[in-house]
């Protein structure tokens, strides 16, 4: 896979409408060409399905992070309130963690949310290669305004397919 994109020059086709883009992506794929990337100014609904992208698993990751947060909160409250230094505070039972648990519900909840939200967003930034000062990933600045770009390796008959699909500009990079 990697060697084909390195040796073959890329073709960039610009579209000016999201509905045209969706149908173009379908046409390009139906004609047997492989799309390397699509740049859009906003989330175009149905584009991931048209491109055949797999579903994101980031929600599953968030769930796991939440479980970690809950575990940390249970450990923290058990160690500090029951194991290390149990104290009689307001007559609340501190013989074991389970009896004292109702008073810890807010902490358990907040820690779960804290871990799930923050670790998910860190994951999101890392897998997308987003960090302060990173170079813009879109080759053409118009794709954050109102243009949509399809990027794919050059191949025979590709230009004709792109022209037919409604591209307003085609350039070889």
């Amino acid at each position, binding site marked *: 896979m990697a060697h084909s994109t390195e040796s073959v020059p890329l073709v960039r086709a610009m579209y000016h409408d999201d509905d045209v883009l969706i149908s173009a992506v379908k046409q390009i794929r139906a004609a047997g060409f492989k799309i390397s990337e699509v740049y859009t100014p906003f989330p175009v609904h149905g584009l991931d399905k048209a491109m055949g992208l797999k579903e994101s698993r980031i929600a599953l990751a968030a769930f796991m992070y939440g479980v970690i947060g809950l575990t940390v909160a249970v450990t923290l409250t058990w160690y500090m309130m029951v194991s290390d230094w149990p104290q009689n505070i307001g007559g609340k039972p501190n013989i074991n963690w389970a009896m004292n648990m109702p008073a810890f519900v807010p902490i358990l909840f907040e820690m779960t949310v804290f871990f799930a939200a923050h670790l998910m967003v860190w994951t999101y930034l890392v897998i997308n290669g987003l960090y302060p000062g990173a*170079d813009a990933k879109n080759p053409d600045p118009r794709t*954050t*305004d109102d243009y949509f770009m399809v990027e794919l390796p050059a191949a025979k008959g590709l230009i004709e397919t792109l022209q037919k699909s409604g591209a307003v500009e085609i350039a070889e990079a």
Partner: protein
Amino acid sequence: MHYESTERKPLILGDKSYHQITEDVVRPIETAAPRAWWVAFSIALVMFLWGAGSIAYTVATGIGVWGLNKTVGWAWDITNFVWWVGIGHAGTLISAVLLLFRQRWRMAINRSAEAMTIFSVIQAGLFPLFHMGRVWLAYWVFPIPNQYGSLWVNFNSPLLWDVFAISTYLTVSVVFWYVGLIPDFAMVRDRAINPVQKHIYKILSFGWGGKAKAWQRFEEVSLVLAGLATPLVLSVHTIVSMDFATSVIPGWHTTIFPPYFVAGAIFSGFAMVQTLLLIVRKVFKMDDYITIQHIEMMNIVIMVTGSIVGVAYITELFIAWYSGVEYEQYAFLNRATGPYWWAYWSMMTCNVFSPQLMWSKKLRTNLVFTFMISIVVNIGMWFERFVIIVTSLHRDYLPSSWSMFSPSFVEVGIFIGTIGFFFALFLLYARTFPVIAQAELKTILKTSGEAQKKLHNDHGAQH
């Protein structure tokens, strides 16, 4: 392609294209600040400096410079803390709860509402921080190993729950806001001409390129964050209310507090969103995006939550009578007819009576009226917290220790300082950040744009 019923009013007025949305959103960033902005910013800065001076005086001298006494140990600062946290709630409600309910009208207002959330939670945090007295030991609220044993923090205490709730709420709100801002900063970056500006927005936009996979993840992350933020926002004010509800003080020790506080928070938060957005709309000429319909929707939320708050007030009174506990009964009688009667009746007028006017469609679509009510509601909600806190404390079980509370000029100064700080932050935000979530708004242009809807309807009629 998804089309919307003709019954639904357009959410974006006029004949807009994607490019026109970009131009309209970026205009306040790319043009010089109007004179009114500088005037407002200067006033906010002066207020902020006064507050900073008052805080410096408090820290240097001690909490004794406030008007607190042995009977009323909690008053002005906690009132302001609860008031600011409550205001913050509307931002999360708009961006998270309305996202889960697929309310598209949120898209024009969620960015500013979330900014308001973050800036007001910052103000809220200042009050308990400086009420600690020795602010340089503020890190003691976190469970950090220490030389006293270790003597840990008390996880049974609602005050500690508050520390966890507020810090989770603030940081998760910032992250939620920023994830949405990244694509919009990229838009500003890609059209910036000034190299300094381009460099700043390059840093802020984290290199966003709008790749299809990144957008897919973006949508999933937004949905999960909304799902997490929804119970979070409800938990925050619930826990704030438990600061009071778990104390054995007549007037505080009631189970109605959590839902009653949450409703009040949404009520005051939406009022503050109205105040800010009516100004943003006017100054930046965003009338096509923040339409009368948006204003009306928010007024309906204010009316509904105001009514819930009214029912809660009456329920409290009924339960005090029905409980047969004379201390409880006296606490409420004292609220309405005691020395702080004026605070109680200000609260009743502002919070229970004034939102009922919104039943009239003519009034709730009137901008001047909406602006006035939004201020009135926030005054009322400030009085609500003052009434709950001070009137419950100032006459306790022992009549010999009954006393009154009045704030010192230092406390008033800190409160005015937070208002200045809040507006200074919001004014800076309005000049440098995209005030409308333009990437999100572009997704509804074809279904909810006025010209696009009309075109589709005219076209559809021919079939």
